[in-house]
């Protein structure tokens, strides 16, 4: 069965019934073989153009949502979302535009030490995730954004971050500072004598944990 209109209405029904955005692969699994999912989605998208509900692609998945310009009608449905602090918003933007990014990168761009309650709030909200480690000395953990982040802001992919192309072209998203960059960095200046570790707590991951005697049994 590959009647294009039938494909379109099946896609419509599935996406309407779905509890969350569905990928083309999810949809293909539920449609007969040979159905042109891509064409069907495009047809469906244009059927809904200008209507009160529209079909959008977020995080590489498709969902129906109410039209943007009707936000004012949706007073009853609106959820009071947790408002992010200014610092958390800025941190989120830095992670989104620069990912994968380390905590030190964030601090260097903002010129302030990341306070407790910025990065962990973003992690708790599921907007940010731990991505891996950078292959540099110390192997710092890197952060990136999640699908939830894309879904929240209705972005199909990270390439759709507003203004990202222009910023990139201007070199504003590179994490390498000019070689002899000498602006005092309050973070690193202070970090040395300030706070952070309890006595006996060596900051080097490998030193710290490789030979550590945490007995499993006891």
């Amino acid at each position, binding site marked *: 069965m590959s009647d294009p209109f039938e494909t379109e209405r099946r896609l419509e029904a599935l996406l*309407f*019934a*779905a*509890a*969350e955005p*569905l*990928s083309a692969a*999810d949809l293909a699994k539920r449609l007969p073989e040979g159905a042109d999912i891509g064409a069907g989605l495009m047809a469906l998208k244009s059927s809904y153009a200008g209507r009160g509900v529209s079909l959008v692609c977020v995080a590489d*998945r498709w*969902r*129906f*949502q*109410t*039209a*943007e310009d009707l*936000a004012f009608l949706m007073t009853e*449905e*609106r*959820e009071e*979302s947790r408002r992010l602090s*200014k*610092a958390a*918003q*800025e941190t*989120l*933007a*830095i992670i*989104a*535009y620069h990912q994968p990014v380390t905590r030190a990168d964030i601090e260097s*761009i*903002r*010129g*302030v030490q990341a306070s407790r309650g910025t990065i962990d709030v973003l*992690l*708790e909200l*599921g907007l940010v*995730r*731990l991505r891996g480690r950078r292959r540099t000395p110390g192997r710092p953990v890197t952060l990136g954004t999640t699908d939830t982040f894309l879904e*929240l*802001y*209705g*972005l199909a992919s990270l390439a759709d*971050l*507003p*203004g990202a192309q*222009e*910023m990139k072209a*201007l070199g*504003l*998203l590179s994490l390498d*500072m*000019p070689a*002899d*960059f*000498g*602006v*005092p960095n*309050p973070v690193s*200046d*202070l970090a040395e004598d300030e706070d952070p570790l309890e006595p006996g707590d060596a900051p080097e991951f490998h030193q710290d944990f490789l030979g550590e005697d945490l007995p499993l049994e006891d």
Partner: protein
Amino acid sequence: MGGVSEPFQPLLDFAAADVAAEDGDALIVDIDGYEGPLHVLLALARSQKVDLLQLSITRLAEQYLAFVHTARRARFSLAADYLVMAAWLAYLKSRLLLPKPARKGADEPPAEEVAAALAFRLAKLDAMRRAVEALKTRPQLKRDVFTRGDPDAIQITSTTRFDGDLYALIQAYVAQRRRDASRRYQPRAPEAYPLEDARRRLRGKLGEMKAWTTLTSVAPKRSPLDEEDRGPSRASYLASTLAAGLELVREGELEARQSEHFADLYLRACSLRLEAAE
């Protein structure tokens, strides 16, 4: 705003910051709104109304020093990093203005390069402030756009995703280690009723023990004030009192008697000693 900002300016609500930046006092009053010296520098730089990459760093340094000066006069306590930045800017400014020495300082990059690097760094931060505004204006789920509301709808879920949430995983790990740690420290060693205390107490009671008295009635009871798992147990009170009693028997101050195994144990003060004491 110059070339850097033009390609995308979703929402220019920086006007307020610019006004504040032009008026020293307003900026000071607002100091809580700035997170650090770089944010203050950015607000000041915007007031120059030029492309950030074309910024006059000398002028910026003056603006910043004036800001710090006013803040200190108004007795705002500025964090150390604001002052470090002030000192560094004052030095940079002097290097920018003074004629170049014939021989360059050994490790120091030319002042112009450092100034350009600062301008670049401000441009980077500025780009992120703009990104925040741009994200804010995007239609947000559950604020501006809504997905289907019916909670009872047939649920078709995406099978191509699995939530490998590393943060949740390490949260789960830490939570258990914490539980484990507290569990390990919890079981207190049972508290014993010290023998010395038992002796002292028993000796004090000799006067009341002229007749045969059961051990259980002599041994102290657990006070209702004792917390559930604190203080010696009833068995410990009994055992220590018995041991103390036997010592007193050996010393001739007490007699003990038991009619058969497991029967009640009776204690009585030795009459001779008692009389002598009285």
